């Protein structure tokens, strides 16, 4: 057993020597949480728009004032002809053009029907949709003020929507579990697969294999430091989520930590599996990226909703471990549920780990004989 601890200590020395990697390991979750928490918003603020006003009347002017004083929009250009629109869009600064046709004010005041055009540059789709929605609601509210409803309509059904679990609609509730899954996977699986590939590449793996340590001890020794590192990282992210971003912890902390350990164990098994296949660090890294990280980011529901994906991708997403882990974290932290609700997800993670660990141990054997 002493031998085993000596070996674990050696692994820790490796990690500790490599200051830069340690810095990145712990800096990464911090940076990601801050970016997601504070930089990535789809809220519109001071978006640059252009106006093409053929009318120059009282109503068009008032609507423009209304748009610009809302805080959402800022005027970049006043255009004079339709041809300018194309050129403006091509430069890429302006994403929305508001067009008032000639006689707009007159039509609106006298004929009772007038048209305003909102032209959006949908090459930036998300922005285009939000800009259009914001502008539409501002113009509509202007219209409503001009035509106050005369009487209460009959048969009024009122809807009381209630936002359960996240009344303030905070974005952090989605991305913190996602970031957690990603970072844990990154640290555990990527690091393990690469360090083992490294020992193979530099030839030290052979030295270890002929040492009196058993194969399992070697693997476990290699994996243990990363397990601890990942766990520490997981705790940091949870703490950041709670104290910096105001995510509640409604469920049991103990269960959360246990599930985190389970997910780390699963990631380590995955890393081990990759390392039994990959002979060089480059291949190990590429395999980790392609087979784990990309699917995790895109198919776990962390950024894009799973329900909207094509069937085939929804199916694939079922074998992405992060998907279950994310559900578990949300369940425990936000919904405050326990194993009673999460046993299925937990079971999936347990069986996946067992399977992966089994395969990688099986793969490893012939290598030693």
């Amino acid at each position, binding site marked *: 057993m002493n031998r085993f601890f000596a070996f674990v200590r050696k692994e820790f020395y490796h990690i500790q020597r490599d200051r830069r990697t340690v810095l990145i390991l712990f800096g990464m979750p911090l940076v990601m949480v801050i970016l997601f928490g*504070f930089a990535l918003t789809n809220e519109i603020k001071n978006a640059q728009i252009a106006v093409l006003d053929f009318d120059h009347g009282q109503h068009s002017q008032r609507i423009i004032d209304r748009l610009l004083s809302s805080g959402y929009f800022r005027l970049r250009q006043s255009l004079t002809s339709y041809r300018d629109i194309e050129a403006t869009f*091509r430069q890429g600064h302006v994403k929305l053009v508001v067009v008032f046709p000639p006689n707009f004010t007159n039509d609106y005041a006298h004929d009772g029907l007038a*048209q305003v055009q909102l032209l959006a540059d949908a090459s930036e789709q998300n922005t285009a949709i939000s800009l259009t929605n914001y502008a539409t609601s501002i113009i509509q509210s202007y219209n409503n003020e001009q035509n106050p409803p005369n009487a209460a309509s009959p*048969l009024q059904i*009122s809807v009381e929507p209630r936002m*359960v679990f996240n009344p303030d*609609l905070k974005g952090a509730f989605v991305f913190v579990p996602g970031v957690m899954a990603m970072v844990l996977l990154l640290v555990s699986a990527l690091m393990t697969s690469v360090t083992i590939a490294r020992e193979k590449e530099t030839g030290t793996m052979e030295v270890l294999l002929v040492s009196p340590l058993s194969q399992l001890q070697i693997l476990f020794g290699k994996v243990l430091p990363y397990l601890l590192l990942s766990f520490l990282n997981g705790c940091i992210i949870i703490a950041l989520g709670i104290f910096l971003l105001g995510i509640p912890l409604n469920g049991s902390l103990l269960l959360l930590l246990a599930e985190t350990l389970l997910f780390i164990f699963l990631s380590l098994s995955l890393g081990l599996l990759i390392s039994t296949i990959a002979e060089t660090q480059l291949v190990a890294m*590429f395999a980790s990226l392609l087979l784990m990280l990309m699917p995790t980011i895109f198919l776990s529901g962390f950024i894009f909703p799973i329900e909207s994906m094509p069937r085939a991708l929804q199916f694939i997403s079922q074998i992405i471990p992060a998907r279950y882990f994310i559900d578990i974290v*949300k369940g425990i932290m936000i919904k405050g549920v326990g194993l009673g609700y999460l046993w299925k997800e937990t079971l999936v993670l347990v069986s996946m780990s067992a399977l992966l660990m089994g395969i990688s141990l099986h793969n490893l054997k012939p290598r030693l004989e």
Partner: protein
Amino acid sequence: MTRIRFIIEKEFKQIFRNAVLLRMMLAAPVLQLILLAYAANFEVKNLNIVVVDQDHTTYAQRLVGKFRHIDNFRLKGYVPAYKPAYRELLASRADLILLIPPHFERDLGKENRASIQLLVNAIDGSKAGIASGYAQTIIRNFNDEIRTETVAVQQPATGGRLEIENQYWYNPRLEYKTFMVPGILFELLILVGGMIAALNIVREKEIGTQEQLNVTPIRKHEFILGKLTPFVIIGLVQFTMGLLVGIFLFQIPVVGSVPLMYGFAFLFLLLCVGLGLLISAISETQQQAMFAVFFCLVLFILLSGLFSSTENMPTWAQYLNTLNPLRYIIEVGRNVMLKGSTFRDMQSQFVALLLMAVALISLASWRYRKTV
């Protein structure tokens, strides 16, 4: 100068000999493109809805019927009361609960008004907002429908009516693919080009061949150029594959000039490989290099505007973003490919990318060899 040729030749031989790597390098872009183009979809569809109908009247049933057979919702069934309904939310079996209180129809008839409760799982806030919007629209339409049935005469319109016409240019049907693919196409270049380049020199350091190269009369610029060229060429091949997939599989329109796109791809590749070589030059192990690249990539991608718009970021993030090469190239991709922007329109992006490429490559050649 012929020395460069030998380095390039050697790099290519090594790349082609590593079958696994080669396959991954070629598969990665196509795979990611397909994955992203299909998965990257912020549309909200297939929302699971569970109904608590405590009224059991025709109106209630008709209202529930409105949630059947539409794209956005999947009617999961009924539960008798609030408590079991909440449990459905807890168990993630429902995204939305429609709660029709007792006496819904009676209140509507007698008092002319009634209310309905909507419980939305709001962990994903933006999705919840959209979901509740959809549901409210359906309820409002139902409201209008029963109103016209009972109150036969429509009220005449008073005052002016304002029609708003929306046009989405360059992507009129709002296809997410059209929006995502040009961005991803360029994003891939930094992923593959930059990453493999970053590991390249470090690998030679680790194996020991770097020291051997350092005692040869090879010049810095020859070394850097020799290393740069193969990756730029591979990057262009990947770009071409991605472009073909985009055009033929996803039918992304290419409005702008293809040579201009290749010009920018070339410039951007120089930049990526320069960044990779710089990281490679300052790292001691492949692991270190890999993590450094990874860190840069995560930062670049998140801030690039690939997923969320760059203009709405807080000021500090926008300042940070002026140093983000990915952001410029994604702007170029979308503008040139979808809108047909010309070189003149993309001047500022060109200057920014050029400056960064020159700076990175010079830094890389300056740092190389000193650290040996």
